[in-house]
Structure formats: structure tokens, C-alpha cells
């Protein structure tokens, strides 16, 4: 079987920008996408290297798009191009290499990311400072290239080696050893040693000042500076947002008790206070007995109403709630972005965040 699959003929589609597509430089960056049958520019080199590695590869088509056109019309370009590419029934799509060309790198990343979930393997290459790297490294296998076209052959060779593995359906366990950037994705595996032994070994190395490798390198954390206090609340619209899981009874949106994948938006109109009959905690990370007894303990509507009269602010008509328990930072950021857009649209000027 292995021999048979090795002797198979593979169909590859190549994506390039206007420069590598032979159209022209920056002055042609606005050209609309078009397709050339067969390889073009670096595609010829790729095809030659595939064959040198004994992979019977035909680059059946080269898809070209101007970098500026892609950047300005990404959504429509992807909507139109992805079916065109898949129409060639490719076993693999290669995009770039993009080197340090920012818009080109973004386009290569976007194309690969759109294809992968559809079951079409797609790879690209770029320089470590290309903005496409940060944007797409988590979802796309990106080969590390030099910053200029002088590194073309080296990048092409690495792409071909990776491409052959993907053509053969091999799982890429360690992108780094394939010459790719680490995807920054945590993946579980079974170590030979239980964790307690690894911990003691690591401590002995640390004590002896021998080199050791942490199993989780500490990431850079966002720190949000608090805004200055508002001098006067009169007339200001204030919203309540909580990660403490206070939802209408029955948890209508089924917000998970841990690892929340969503948040809810619930009305406060006509509510003077929260009651145990009407609201509850959906949060599984703390003893919610007392929050269920009196939900104001986590989402202080009763106090808002009192202070509203005293200080003259306007409470927003809705509150937002999610569960902070084990919820990934990426999900939390996504919720915050969506909630913030709505709050700004609705004229909210200040937010009180309650957590548990």
C-alpha cells in the first residue's frame, strides 16, 4: 500500500501574488484574482523539487491575486477563490513563500486557514516578522523562510518536505522539527515518567544549576490599566457585566458551568432586585448556595437601584453574564469584544464588572 500511495500522482494548486505571478510589482498590487493552468514562477521550482524527492506532483494551476486587492476585498476574494481552488480537486495547496511581504503573508495565511477545515491540506512559508505569522500560526502550518527572495530555494525545499508528509496523510506531531513555526497550541501527550518524578528531577537540576526545560513557558500577559475614576455619575449610563454566572432561572442559554463557550444578555427592565425565584448562578467554580439564595450578592441590582436614585446615573437596560470558571482567555476576549461593541453602540459610558 505504501508503495502504491508513493507512486500516486498528486495534484497541487499554488497561490502567489502579482509579483511571483509575473504580472508586476507594487503598481500591479490591485489586480483581481485570476488563474493560470500549470506552474508559474516559484511553482516551477516547487514542482522540480517535489519530483527530486520522488513525489509525482503536478502543479495543476497557479492562482494569482494582487496583494492590495486581496487585503481590501479579503472576504469576497476568499468566497470566490476557495471554490475555484477546490474545483481543481487538489491533494495539497501551497501558498507563497511570502518572505517578509506583509499583505502577501496575510493572504497566504487566510487561504490556508480557509482550506484546512474543508479537508484540503494547505501550507505556506514566511519570515518570522511577517504579520501573517501571528495571525495564522495557530491554525496553519507555516514554514520559516528568510526575509527576502534570496532564500527561495531553502524555503521551497522545506515546503516540499512538509508537503510530501501532508500528501501522504502523515500527522505533523512536531511542526518545529519540520522547519515550521511552533503553532503555539498546547497538545496533550503521555510522558514516560509520572509528573511527580519529573518535578523532583527538574528541582534537582535547578538546585545543581544544570540546564532544565520548563514544560510550560510562562506567556506574556496583558495587563489592563484601570481608567481614571469618573468625577460625576449624573446622567452617565452604567452597565453591569458579570463572570459570576448570574442567569435567569433555568439558564435559558445553557451557559456551561465551566469552560463557557458563550455569554448571555438579559433584561433588567422593571427589576428592582434579583430574587432566588427568577435568577440563579450557572457557575460551577464556587459554592453558589449563597448566590442562589440572593443573586444580588453577585450581580448587585438591589444596590444599583438604590444608588441610581442617590447618584443620578442611568443603569443600562440589559446585563451580560458568563461563567469565568475554566473559560479560556481566547473565549473571554471574544466575549469582551462583542459585548464592548454593543455597549458602545447602546451609549453605555461605564461598566461595573463583577466576578467571583
Amino acid at each position, binding site marked *: 500500500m505504501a508503495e502504491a500511495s508513493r507512486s500516486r500522482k498528486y495534484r497541487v494548486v499554488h497561490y502567489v501574488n502579482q509579483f511571483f505571478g509575473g504580472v508586476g510589482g507594487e503598481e500591479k498590487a490591485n489586480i483581481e484574482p485570476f488563474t493560470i493552468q500549470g506552474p508559474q514562477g516559484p511553482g516551477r521550482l516547487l514542482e522540480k523539487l517535489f519530483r527530486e524527492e520522488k513525489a509525482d506532483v503536478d502543479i495543476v494551476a497557479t492562482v494569482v491575486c494582487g496583494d492590495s486587492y486581496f487585503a481590501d476585498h479579503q472576504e469576497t476574494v476568499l468566497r470566490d477563490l476557495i471554490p475555484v481552488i477546490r474545483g481543481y480537486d487538489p491533494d495539497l495547496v501551497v501558498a507563497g513563500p511570502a518572505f517578509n511581504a506583509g499583505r502577501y503573508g496575510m493572504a497566504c495565511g487566510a487561504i490556508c486557514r480557509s482550506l484546512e477545515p474543508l479537508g484540503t491540506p494547505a501550507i505556506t512559508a514566511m519570515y518570522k516578522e511577517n504579520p501573517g505569522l501571528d495571525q495564522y500560526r*495557530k491554525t496553519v502550518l507555516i514554514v520559516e523562510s528568510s526575509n527576502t527572495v534570496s532564500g527561495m530555494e531553502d524555503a521551497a525545499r522545506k515546503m516540499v518536505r512538509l508537503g510530501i508528509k501532508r500528501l501522504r496523510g502523515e500527522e505533523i*506531531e*512536531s*511542526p518545529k522539527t519540520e522547519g515550521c513555526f*511552533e*503553532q*503555539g*497550541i*498546547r*497538545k*496533550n*501527550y*503521555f*510522558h*514516560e*515518567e*509520572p*509528573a*511527580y*518524578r*519529573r*518535578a*523532583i528531577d*527538574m*528541582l*534537582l537540576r*535547578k*538546585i*545543581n544549576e544544570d540546564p*532544565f526545560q*520548563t*514544560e*510550560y513557558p*510562562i*506567556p506574556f*500577559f496583558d495587563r489592563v490599566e484601570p481608567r481614571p475614576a469618573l468625577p460625576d455619575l449624573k446622567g452617565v449610563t452604567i452597565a453591569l457585566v458579570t463572570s459570576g454566572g448570574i442567569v435567569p432561572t433555568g439558564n435559558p442559554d*445553557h451557559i*456551561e*458551568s*465551566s*469552560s463557557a*463557550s458563550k455569554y448571555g444578555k438579559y433584561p433588567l427592565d422593571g427589576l428592582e432586585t434579583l430574587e432566588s425565584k427568577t435568577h440563579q448562578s450557572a457557575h*460551577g*467554580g*464556587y*459554592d453558589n*448556595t449563597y448566590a442562589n439564595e440572593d443573586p444580588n450578592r453577585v450581580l448587585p441590582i438591589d444596590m444599583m437601584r438604590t444608588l441610581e436614585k442617590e447618584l443620578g446615573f442611568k443603569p443600562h437596560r440589559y446585563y451580560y453574564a458568563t461563567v*469565568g*470558571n*475554566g473559560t*479560556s*482567555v*481566547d*473565549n473571554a476576549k471574544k466575549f469582551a469584544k462583542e459585548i464592548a461593541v454593543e455597549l458602545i453602540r447602546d451609549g453605555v459610558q461605564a461598566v461595573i464588572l463583577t466576578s467571583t
Partner: protein
Amino acid sequence: MSYAKPRAGVQPVTHQWNKITVSDLGFSSPTRLENGKLLIHIDELTSLLRSDPNIRDVKLAIARPGESVRIIPVKDVIEPRLSLIPDYPVFPGVLSGWDPDVNGIPSGEIVSVSGMVVTTVGSIVGFQEGLIDMSGPGARYSLFSQKLHLVLDITVKEGIGRHDHETSIRMAGIKASDYIARSVLTPPLPAGSGETLINPEDPGSPASPKRAVGNGKPRIAYLYMLQTQGLLHDTYYCGVDVKTMLPRRIVPTEVLFGAIVSGNCVSACDKNTTYHQQNNPIILELLRRHGTDWDFAGCVITNENVTLGDKQRSSSLAAELIASLSPDGVIVSKEGFGNPDADLMMNCSKIEALGIKTVLLTDEFAGQDGASQSLTDTHPKADAIVSTGNANEVIVLPPMETVLGDDRVITELAGGSSKCRLPDGSVAIELQALIGSTNQLGFETISSRFK
């Protein structure tokens, strides 16, 4: 009236630990051990547990490794043990009054069954307890899949409060474990395996080696963090709720006797059941190679409370207590995740600030796709971390023929979701729901790395 015994100059506390292997479980009267098979008198055990007025019904069942059985939702797992030391019973302070500082910890013998555990299940307060699969892909993630289980499915009377409910079920597991131990582990005992564990010298003792006059061996201490965040997130030391305590030193082999009892099971992957506490592998390894490969300087337990002030106070005290042991380095194990990440980082940074090196054991919550950052708090000094796996990673568990407990709760478990049931009866669930799968005392081999 009793007084603390003088300790200076005395021999270190030494415990002989004998293990009697159980090869199978069955129901028969009387409760006994027969040719390696543990037989349990159903009526006697049931009526003992039903003497708690809050308990309405107890159903007993047996689960064996390799069987198509799912145990859900699990409250606690306990290994039956019997202390042969007069006046120092197992579960000190829980089944009888005990103050470790008044009585001291006497040396002597303890016997345990090996290969068999008591497992309590039943809907506790609605959601969040974990599951054990006895076969299939889930079995690889938990040491409990390799144990024989006596499962106690407990129903409480209607109308009792959640805290009383939790207490009743916690105590039922302890009582059942004690009942089995008393029934079958009294001498003369069948042949088993045994080992002698010698504790570090009390740091107050003149015989205790200090770093300054050390013998060239690295001195290692252990900071043992216990989750203490309220109902179903609590832990007990000698019967005392650890959230009401300050950090303190313990004699490491106290854990063998059940001095630390679990009252928590939510987000089951990284909660220490009582079994985990009784068999803490960090303590056992540090004791077994103590005096040969290193000097075990001692063990400090600390809590993970919910307020910032408590966290600051406990971490300052824990760091001070660790420093009093004059170690070169310290292993720090965490329990739970999220909020306790802050306790872990405070402990780490305050201990490192005293010139003592740290290694931290933690699991990760990096999202189902592994793309998110794993901890809710970090510190630049946390440069030596052992990962016990990403608990958000999803595993597909096929249906099991037998469910012990109630699997209707599976969508509500921490790690489950309203969409986790697949059309073929499988569940796609986060590792979070498998009890002990990412245990931070380091029992398991799972880890996580960058892809």
C-alpha cells in the same frame, strides 16, 4: 489533661506500612478476606451507613478493571486502612477527636488494602462531579480505572441542605472504608508487601541537619497546597476545615493515616480525592529516597482561599514556614485551577524571593483547541513548571453497558456541555470530567507541550 510530648532529640517518626492485595470483590456474610477476595456483608454495611439520619438509601455495587462500566458522578475515592498504633486511629480528628499538636505523631504500623477502593457516588448538589470509566479510551487517563471499586450510591433525604448533604456523603465514604479496614485488616494478616518510611527530623530537633552544616545532599521541602474554596471545594486536616487554618508543618506520613480528607470533587480532573491524599506520590518519593539521594527537609500544607487578603497572608506564612526548613529547593503542588493559580504564583514568587528554588506542578486550561494561555496568573520566577496536561482537551467516550450512579448529569459536569452527547451514544467531553486525569500531585503521566 495531656501535654505535648518533648520531641527534641527523639528518633524521627517512623511508620511501617503493610499492604494486603485484594484480587476481587464480592458480597457475602460476614465481611472478610478469603484467598485474596474481599467479601462484604451488604446489610451490615448498609445499616451502618443508614444510621446517619440524613441518608435515605445506599445501593452497593462492584466495578472491576476492564468492565464496560461508567461510575458517575463520583464524590470521593478512599483506600481502606487500619492503624495498628494504639490511640492513633486512621482519619484522626474525623472519626475521633485528635489534635496533632497535643498528642504528637506516634511511630508504628499501618495496614492498607491494595487494589481496592471505596467510591462514593450520587447526585450531590446538582452538577460537577466527575466520572471513572473502567474500560475504553477514558481508562487510560485515571489510575482509578485499574482499581476494584466498591461503589456506594447514596441518596439523601429530601429537603436537607447542600452542606449537610455533602457532609453525609463524605462521612459515609470514610465510615465504609473504616468498616472494611476494621473487618478484614486485623492481625493475623495474610502475607503482603511492606515498607518502612522514616520521616525527616523535626526541624526543632538538634539532630536536624541544616543547610549550613549540610552533608552535601540537596535539601528538598514540599509545599502541599489544598483547595479550600467552600462547598465541594474544601479539604480537611485532622477534621478541621483547612480554609479556617493557617499554613502549618505536618509529619509527612500523617497522610498515610488519612489526616487529609477530601471534601471536593468539582472539575474532577485536578481534585485530590482522599485516595490521592493517602497516597501522595511526592511525599512517598521524597521519603523513599530521603537520606540517600537527598534530604527531605519537611512538608508544609497551605490553603487556597478565595479572598486576596487570605491569599497574601497564607502565601507569606507558607514561604516563611518553608524557609524555616532551610531547603535548597521546594516542590509546590497545586489543587484546582483558575483562582488557585494566583495562590501558586504568590507561593512561588515569595519562596524564590527567599533564595529557595521552586518547581511547580500544575495542569493547564488552554481551551479545547489548546490555543489559549493555560494559567490565569503567572510570575517571571515561575520558570520551572511540570505540566500535568490540558484539561480542556476533548476526549470521546463510547457508551458503557453499565452505569453506576446517574449519567443523566453528564451534560452538566464541568467539562460537559449541552452538545456533548453524540448521535451514537458517545460523549465528547473535556478531560476535566475524568476524575484525577490531570492530578497535580503528579500521579499520572499525561503532560502537554507546544505543537
